[in-house]
């Protein structure tokens, strides 16, 4: 094998490709060739590294130097300095927010060093398109052990003992699910993988499928052996073309290596795996709907029982597991259940991947042991709210977990440990792992409205409580955000929530009220100020705010004037500016553009008052 003196791991995940990492790759190859380094330096285009917002990123081994925000223009200099002269380029390294010094090594960056990588064990380390690289990092060792040293019952026992719970949202114990399906006898059984990832604001499954497709396949092979399934399907959203391409390639390679198809590893066990492209309907992530969808029908949930373990896809016993759940399996088999339990808590063992997004400094994918406090994830790994350290800067308001089925957790509960049980106590859920951080410029009533709009839209329409109930609630929230709310609305909303939860057919309806309930519980005063004072203090609901310049703070820099598309801001340079309320459409562009916090947000009535004061201009 070729011995290289340096390995450049350039990220080829969706995020980095969007930040033009393909161009960086071309520039790198060209430069390395030009310098005659082809035999000394190896460039690997890896899957998602997780630190997406800083992309394109690259780590140089053996030193582990981390570079970020690379452009093709940086490459000649980087190759010359780092690879030829051995001087890492400080300018391109990660800098801690607000402190300017560079942090050269990836292991010293807080975003990375507080994480524990199990699911993401290979992130940024292998080329996802090469099975050899997966195998070189203990890949398929778990499968080999499961096939040659263990009986199906033993596999089930290890997974059960590990305490692993489904990462797709419901948190159902995986070992138990396998045991139930294993007990049913049938000529055909199905092992299915849920890669639908419908939660908007979550992208862990996408990253795993793109960065380490073999880890999912290995989990499925082991699962198939445990339950005695000889057919498997991975259900992936059609919106994830790169994931589909890499999974297809990985399946092909696994076939060639004798890990899929007939007589796997010489044990006489057969398992065929194929990919099915979802066609975009949130409810198809629900297990019974997903199976209907694979059968080519409209993906509507059906009532259980019968459970899929008895009658699932094509009426045969089936097990459906989430992508991340499956990626946890191989290490559990290889290292045992005690090893898995060494992290996490009694009831929530192991690690969980979260997609940390929104108003946070370090946006990206993080894997942490279950049971650590939310605060550690947000403040230490995430680096806190973005722009918090500036004068008049932003402050943390809430973190949304569990997407449309989850809820918003306020600052006062940030010490809650992330476990299935503790997060539920707050009214939110762990869900699939989306964690969207909101600051004081986000309006919680609009947020609730946003999720309700989503569920009302995605309700498959089969059962009236979900369909009509979400619509009625959405109408009420629309009224509140438009200034037509009534004082009784808050109580009516809470009552409706109760009805929908208790009478809906599937998880979509049963959880749809959560965003509304939690925002009322923790941010009731925001609802009240929308309803009583007609005032959206965050400046999001257009009919409920007035933008005015604080003359004492305004420096006259003109940023707001440039940002305004309506020509409503006027003023001389270096003198306080003014907003013409007649022209203002409350789009908030000036507020977002101001770096000094000199734009204030008043209630709707203020604007009416100001309009009355200024005599109407006749044209």
């Amino acid at each position, binding site marked *: 094998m070729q011995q290289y003196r340096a390995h450049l791991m350039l990220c080829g995940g969706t995020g980095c490709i969007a930040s033009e990492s393909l161009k960086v790759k071309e520039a790198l190859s060209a430069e390395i060739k030009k310098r005659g380094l082809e035999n000394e330096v190896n460039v690997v285009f890896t899957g998602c590294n997780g630190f997406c917002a800083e992309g394109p990123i690259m780590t140089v081994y053996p030193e582990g130097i981390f570079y970020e925000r690379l452009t093709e223009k940086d490459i000649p200099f980087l190759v010359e300095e780092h690879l030829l002269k051995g001087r890492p380029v400080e300018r391109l390294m990660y800098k801690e927010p607000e402190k300017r010094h560079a942090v050269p090594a990836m292991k010293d960056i807080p975003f990375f060093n507080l994480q524990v990588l199990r699911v993401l064990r290979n992130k940024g380390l292998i080329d996802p398109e090469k099975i050899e690289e997966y195998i070189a990092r203990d890949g398929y060792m778990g499968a080999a052990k499961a096939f040659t040293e263990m009986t199906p019952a033993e596999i089930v026992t290890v997974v059960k003992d590990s305490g692993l719970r489904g990462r797709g949202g419901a948190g159902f114990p995986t070992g138990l699910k396998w045991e139930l399906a294993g007990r049913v006898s049938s000529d055909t059984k199905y092992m299915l993988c849920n890669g639908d990832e419908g939660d908007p604001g979550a992208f862990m499954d996408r990253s795993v499928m793109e960065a380490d497709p073999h880890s999912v396949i290995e989990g499925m092979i082991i699962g198939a052996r445990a339950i005695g399934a000889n057919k498997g399907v991975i259900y992936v959203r059609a919106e994830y073309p790169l994931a589909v391409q890499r999974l297809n390639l990985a399946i092909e390679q696994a076939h060639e290596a004798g890990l899929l198809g007939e007589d796997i590893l010489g044990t006489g066990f057969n398992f065929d795996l194929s990919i099915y492209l979802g066609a975009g309907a949130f409810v198809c992530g629900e297990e019974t709907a997903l199976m209907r969808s694979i059968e*080519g029908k409209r993906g509507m949930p059906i009532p259980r029982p019968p459970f899929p373990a008895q009658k699932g896809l094509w009426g045969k016993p089936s097990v459906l597991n989430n992508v991340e759940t499956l990626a946890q399996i191989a290490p559990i088999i290889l290292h045992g259940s005690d090893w898995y339990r060494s992290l996490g808590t009694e009831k929530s063992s192991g690690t969980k991947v979260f997609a940390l997004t929104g108003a946070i400094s370090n946006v990206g994918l993080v894997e942490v042991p279950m049971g650590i406090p939310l605060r550690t994830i947000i403040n230490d790994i995430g680096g806190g709210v973005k722009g918090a350290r500036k004068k008049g800067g932003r402050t943390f308001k809430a973190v949304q977990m569990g*997407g449309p089925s989850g809820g918003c957790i306020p600052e006062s509960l940030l010490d809650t440990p992330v476990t299935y049980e503790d997060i539920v106590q707050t009214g939110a859920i762990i869900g699939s792992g989306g964690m969207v951080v909101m600051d004081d410029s986000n309006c919680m009533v609009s947020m609730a409205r946003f999720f309700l709009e989503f569920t009302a839209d995605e309700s498959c329409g089969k059962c009236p409580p979900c369909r009509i109930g979400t619509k009625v609630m959405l109408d009420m929230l629309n009224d509140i955000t438009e200034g037509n709310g009534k004082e009784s609305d808050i109580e009516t909303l809470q009552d409706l929530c109760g009805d929908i939860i208790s009478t809906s057919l599937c998880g979509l309806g049963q959880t749809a009220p959560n965003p509304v309930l939690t925002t009322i519980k923790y941010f009731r005063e925001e609802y009240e100020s929308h309803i009583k004072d007609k005032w959206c203090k965050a400046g999001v609901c257009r009919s409920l705010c007035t933008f005015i310049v604080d003359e004492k703070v305004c420096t006259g820099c003109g940023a707001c004037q440039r940002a305004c598309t309506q020509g409503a801001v006027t003023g001389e340079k270096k003198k306080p500016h003014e907003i013409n309320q007649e022209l203002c459409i409350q789009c908030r*562009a000036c507020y977002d553009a101001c770096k000094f916090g000199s734009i204030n947000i008043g209630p709707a009535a203020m604007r009416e008052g100001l309009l009355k004061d200024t005599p109407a201009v006749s044209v």
Partner: protein
Amino acid sequence: MQKDINILVVDDEPVVINSCERVLREEGYNVHSAMRGKDAIHLMEENIYNLLLTDLKMPEMDGISLIEWTRKSKPSTGIVVITGYPSQQSIQDVLGLGCIDYVPKPFTPVMLTDVTYRALELAKKTPPLEDFPVGDFTPEMALELNSIINNYKNMPGNLIPVLQKAQEIVGYLPPEVQKQISSKLKVPVAEIHSVVSFYSFFTMKQRGKHLIRVCEGTACYVKRVSAVLDKLISELDVKVGEMTTDRKFSLESVRCLGACGLAPVMMIDQSTHGAMTPMKVVEVLDTYKQP
């Protein structure tokens, strides 16, 4: 007022007909009624109805046959079932036939108006096949489609993959395409149409040369994607879900592109553009506007 909306009520019990007529007329709908399936078909051949409300158990021709006839001959009419036996199984059966919803008997006026309103909304969303413009579905495309269909012919659950491939070839799924698939796969057009209208991935509208998809997922929402969307709407002078007059761009909104780390995000064709701002919209569009 809703006076342009025609509803046909079919039931063998005069009480039911009377109460439906009373409630729905109050809402401003035009209501006709029939007590037998045959009469209903007669009326439907004469008039165009937006909605059919029908009982299941009737003498002579039963509700199921009437529904099947309507699905086949009047696919643009939405169907709601009035039933005294709302068991899980029977509801599943009628929904499987392509009905939009059901009203259990006895019902309250609010229940009836709610279901009617919603069913009309849904029926509007899935306009009749005939309303769609005949697009650029060339004979070459038809041939390619045929060979694809042949490849999938014996695979169970082949409808969605075939539709995906068809959309890849033609760009959208106009009625001719659905009809060709129907005759080759031996699946009723109504069933194909119901699958196409269920999944957001499928479109029956022709798309522009470039497809712009703007993410309205949570992360993008929090990062104020609305300002980006507004800018696109004003720059292109086009509504969400439509194509510009020069056929250059189609604008659509989606729920999460899985690139939340770069929010707000939009995609033009296969390339993702992250950290969008209204100003960046202009820059990005310029690169596509050059011939």
